[in-house]
């Protein structure tokens, strides 16, 4: 029935199906050209074209075809698209056909039909469960180099593209009263009932058509076909303003909710997967986070295979999938078919195949007693019916050619090319179990049904084990109405639709005995009945051990068609019942989700926010090299034209600061504005030293402890005005200190009348340091502020107006020089740094980065994050005497614990290499000279190291056991990774200007 000029579709029926025959689509598979129709999946189009072999299996490279018509497909995995968009392990059964689709089979070489790897099948007796563990135990060194790469080449699935993904992905939030998962008959009925109450409804379905099984069965509802009824319901739902329908959207996880039954659901919407390239400005996929007050799970059920010899041959297909291909896609599975069933439901396939004109050679029902009306319905044709019989083997080289049927001890051969199999249905209970609920075994349907479900969720229809259409519609409507009422909406009664009765009886039958060929349990991981039996013999008998030993259920399909069969076989072998054996826990995601979708737009430079100071553009112009400091970018150094050696640049910058003047952007330091009558009281309680004695117009350095007595952070606080302080924190701890202060104010001492706010981003701040800094400021500020030593001494601070802009000046110094920090509102930050530079021109002002700042602070023995590392006390850092005895403060009591005042604690010292030409490394450990390298001999470690431009050699800070008593002692630093052993001399931690004369000049 192909259009002229299109490749033939030999297995396409003349009329049936929901595909759009006016829109033929051409596509390629393994390079060959084929044709299908809009509304096809890749699987249905391949079957229509007569392609039955679509891939090779994971371990044995067995030929495989299409088993199912849904997202549970274990076999028909292909590589879709090419180049940077190449996408491995795509299920052909859910890949929507589009014009120009290009797919390739996987796991074969040199070609799908002739696959060298299939030789693995000859060695099948040794490729059993646990084979790799047993065979490659020794020598272990060869595992990574030899065995694993070899195995990975031989066994494996598709190949991912190694290029960056050219498409975009996004995340979205949605809120609703009622979320309905699945738009089959139960979900549609629930949607209708909830929508008519005016509740906010979201209806999700993984398919591109709503309707679920209604599209695949010849059901009638109120005298219309199931698909016609679906279109009517869909039209009504679309007309409700509070209803959102998400097609091509899989709800893949249920997450913690919050209050009163609300839960958060994660869903993947395949926005553009059905197109060759996403339209402009559209993402490829979108991850939804749906917050729903109530949910209705109408996820249907998965038909399960029966385990018999050769049950993986292309041409063996689930009975329900056969009905899907015939009724929905108008595609016949073969020219001569048979049915192997253990349920009434399977017989529908026999009738549908007959209606489609496919000769039905045989129906084999494993049950001895079958309802006569079923047999009568098919007996009219020349079909052989076997009751209480089994298909023991399916034969064929690349596809099914015949089956062996065993009936009361007699075996007969039947020539067919398609076998429909129905082993009963497993409700899709995965989403009920994501929050820890356990499913419950039902003898009535021989399957697990929802046990304890999350609060606020109801499970309806086939997902609840109610397999008739009437029950699905009834339960769906009731649950939709109940969910709407529970969220405060009034519902109207909807008359129950009239549908035909169905037979749904099933008798458990898992596995055929009496076959010597391979009988597959898990198709995707090539786990056979024999592997399960081996696990039982070797004692791996619990479902969790069975899973890990045989890899049953661990493939990308997560055992949707295999787990229960494997468990049933294990139960029978170990003489237990299935409920006694239990089942494994299912976790999100329900179907595979690309990492790109989970990342959304958080990739590349958007992985996290980048914070830029207002002087960033200026620094870029000056040739700054930037480094990350938390989310901030800070200038590391400023290379002059022709400079390439970073150490030379840093040395130049330090020397310029110490000899004239330099400027450094320090805007990233945390700034917290604290106001209120009790502001000083709060500072007294969070700092170890007194702040209530600090006069207005002065700044003080302070150290904060955690309540356990260890140092939290350090910084300065300025007393700007009455009841008004400005605290500075380290860049890294700005948010942590803010939280700490809020905790103190809101939780510990709510009686304090004090308020605070972070103003880190509101102010740009520049450190102007060096002997010429005062002269620069005189020139820069003019009459705006008197900066003479008398008017503005060390540790002074002032608020003033400069060129009509509010400004603040602090006389503080991290470099150890005469230094100031000038703060102005951030929007003037760029203008201010340019003004500073031009005012400093006559002094040869040098911009410096944080490497120069770091070198200067190490020369001065100032501590930073390397020393305030969460393990040090105030005393360790030489600031024990700062701890006030006149007041209580956070951490005071526990700072006195024996462990924290132990004289043997490592304390802050300086070190310099005995051989002055040697480099020091932070992280190296201290050892006495001549001692063995061992943990027992460890004496502490180097926290910071830098080349000192002023001393002309490397210096370091470190934490050394009893360090203060060891000044002048020679010890060594040891680093097994960098620098090896280096002899060093212990010194005071201040290397440069120990008297601090430069600060006060």
């Amino acid at each position, binding site marked *: 029935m192909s259009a002229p000029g299109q490749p033939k579709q030999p297995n396409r029926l003349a009329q049936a199906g929901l595909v759009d025959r006016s829109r033929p689509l051409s596509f390629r598979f393994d390079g060959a050209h084929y044709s299908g129709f809009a509304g096809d999946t890749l699987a249905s189009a391949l079957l229509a074209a007569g392609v039955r072999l679509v891939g090779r299996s994971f371990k044995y490279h067995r030929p495989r075809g299409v088993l199912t018509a849904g997202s549970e497909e274990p076999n028909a995995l292909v590589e879709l698209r090419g180049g940077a968009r190449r996408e491995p392990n795509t299920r052909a059964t859910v890949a929507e056909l589009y014009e120009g689709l290009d797919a390739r089979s996987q796991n074969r070489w040199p070609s799908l039909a002739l696959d060298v790897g299939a030789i693995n099948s000859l060695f099948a007796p040794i490729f059993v469960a646990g084979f790799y563990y047993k065979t490659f135990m020794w020598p272990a060194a060869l595992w990574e180099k030899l065995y694993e790469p070899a195995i990975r080449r031989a066994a494996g699935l598709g190949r991912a593209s190694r290029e960056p993904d050219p498409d975009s992905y996004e995340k979205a*939030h949605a809120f609703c009263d009622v979320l309905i998962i699945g738009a089959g008959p139960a979900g549609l009925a629930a949607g209708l009932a909830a929508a008519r109450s005016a509740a906010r409804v979201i209806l999700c379905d993984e398919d591109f058509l709503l309707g679920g099984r209604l599209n695949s069965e010849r059901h009638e509802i109120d005298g219309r076909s199931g698909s016609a009824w679906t279109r009517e319901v869909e039209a009504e739902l679309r007309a409700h303003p509070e209803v959102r329908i998400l097609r091509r959207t899989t709800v893949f996880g249920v*997450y*913690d*909710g*919050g*209050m009163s039954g*609300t839960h*958060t659901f994660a869903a993947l919407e395949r926005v553009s997967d059905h197109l060759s390239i996403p339209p402009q400005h559209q993402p490829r996929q979108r991850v939804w986070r749906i*917050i729903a007050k109530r949910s209705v799970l109408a996820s249907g059920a998965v038909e399960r295979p029966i385990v018999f010899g050769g049950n993986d041959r292309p041409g063996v297909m689930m009975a329900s999938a056969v009905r899907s291909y015939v009724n929905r896609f108008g595609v016949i599975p073969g020219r001569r078919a048979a049915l192997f069933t253990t349920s009434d439901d399977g017989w529908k396939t026999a009738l549908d195949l007959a209606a489609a004109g496919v000769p039905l050679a045989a129906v084999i029902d494993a049950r001895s007693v079958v309802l006569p009306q079923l047999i009568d319905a098919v007996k009219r044709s020349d079909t052989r019916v076997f009751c209480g019989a089994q298909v023991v083997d399916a034969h064929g080289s690349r596809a099914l050619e015949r089956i062996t049927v065993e009936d009361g001890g007699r075996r007969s051969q039947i020539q067919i090319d398609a076998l429909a199999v129905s082993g009963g249905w497993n409700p899709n209970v995965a989403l009920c179990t994501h*929050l*820890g609920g356990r499913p419950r075994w039902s003898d009535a349907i021989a399957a697990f049904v929802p046990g304890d479900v999350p*609060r606020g969720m109801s499970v309806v229809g086939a997902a609840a084990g109610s397999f008739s259409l009437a029950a699905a519609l009834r339960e769906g409507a009731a649950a939709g109405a109940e969910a709407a009422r529970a969220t405060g909406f009034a519902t109207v009664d909807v008359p129950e639709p009239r549908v035909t009765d169905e037979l749904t009886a099933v008798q458990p039958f898992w596995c055929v005995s009496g076959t010597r060929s391979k009988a597959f349990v898990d198709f995707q991981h090539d786990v056979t009945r024999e592997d399960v039996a081996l696990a039982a013999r070797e004692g791996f008998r619990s479902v969790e051990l069975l899973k890990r030993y045989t890899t049953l259920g661990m493939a990308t399909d997560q055992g949707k068609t295999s787990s229960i069969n494997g468990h049933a076989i294990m139960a029978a072998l170990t003489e237990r019942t299935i409920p006694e054996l239990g089942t494994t826990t299912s976790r999100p995601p329900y179907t595979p989700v690309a990492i790109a979708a989970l990342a959304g737009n958080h990739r590349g430079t958007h992985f996290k926010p980048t914070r830029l100071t207002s002087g960033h553009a200026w620094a870029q112009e000056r040739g700054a090299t930037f480094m990350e400091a938390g989310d901030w970018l800070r200038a590391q150094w400023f290379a002059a034209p022709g400079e390439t050696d970073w150490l030379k640049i840093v040395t130049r910058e330090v020397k310029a600061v110490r000899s004239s003047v330099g400027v450094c952007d320090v805007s990233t330091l945390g700034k917290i504005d604290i106001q209120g009558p009790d502001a000083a009281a709060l500072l007294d309680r969070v700092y170890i030293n007194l702040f209530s004695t600090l006069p207005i117009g002065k700044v003080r350095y302070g150290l904060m402890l955690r*309540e*356990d007595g260890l140092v939290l952070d350090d910084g300065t606080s300025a007393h700007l005005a009455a009841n008004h302080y400005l605290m500075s924190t380290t860049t890294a701890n700005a*948010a942590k200190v*803010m*939280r700490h202060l*809020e*905790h103190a104010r*809101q*939780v*510990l001492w*709510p*009686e304090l009348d004090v308020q605070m706010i972070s103003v880190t981003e509101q102010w740009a701040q520049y450190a102007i340091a060096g002997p010429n800094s005062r002269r620069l400021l005189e020139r820069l500020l003019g009459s705006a502020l008197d900066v003479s030593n008398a008017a503005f001494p060390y540790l002074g601070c002032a608020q003033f107006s400069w060129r009509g802009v509010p400004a603040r000046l602090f006389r503080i110094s991290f470099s150890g020089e005469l230094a100031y920090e000038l703060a102005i509102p951030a929007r003037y930050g760029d203008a201010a740094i340019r003004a500073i530079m031009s005012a400093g021109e006559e002094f040869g002002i040098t911009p410096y980065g944080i490497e120069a700042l770091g070198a200067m602070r190490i020369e001065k023995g100032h501590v930073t994050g390397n020393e305030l590392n969460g393990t040090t006390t105030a005393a360790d850092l030489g600031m024990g005497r700062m701890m006030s005895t006149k007041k*209580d403060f956070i951490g*005071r*009591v*526990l700072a*006195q*614990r024996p462990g924290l005042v132990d004289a043997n604690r490592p304390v802050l010292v300086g070190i310099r290499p005995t051989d002055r030409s040697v480099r020091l490394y932070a992280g190296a450990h201290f050892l006495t000279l001549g001692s063995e390298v061992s943990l027992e001999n460890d004496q502490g470690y180097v926290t910071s190291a830098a080349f000192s431009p002023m001393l002309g050699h490397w210096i370091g800070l470190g934490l050394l056991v009893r360090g203060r008593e060891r000044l002048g002692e020679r010890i060594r630093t040891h680093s097994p990774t960098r620098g090896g052993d280096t002899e060093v001399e212990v010194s005071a931690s201040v290397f440069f200007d120990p008297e601090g004369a430069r600060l006060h000049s």
Partner: protein
Amino acid sequence: MRIQCPFCGERDLSEFAYLGDAAFQRPDPDAPDAEAKFVDAVYVRNNPAGPHDELWYHAAGCRSWLRVTRNTRTHEILAVAFPTPPGHS
């Protein structure tokens, strides 16, 4: 997970930072056994399976510290209130 902030309304978990047990009360630092009391308060925690009062900080919101009663088995949020220190109920 969603938390009902008394200021901001129901908000996503990602806006909040967790501290821990809300039962923490700062002992009297001048008591003769202050050190033992502090060790107990800082380090010794109940870890109940079920409802648990804990402190959460609405970091990406109003910056309120909240006393949240959470069922540690199900993550259901049973109650949210501002922390009420002793003597301020």
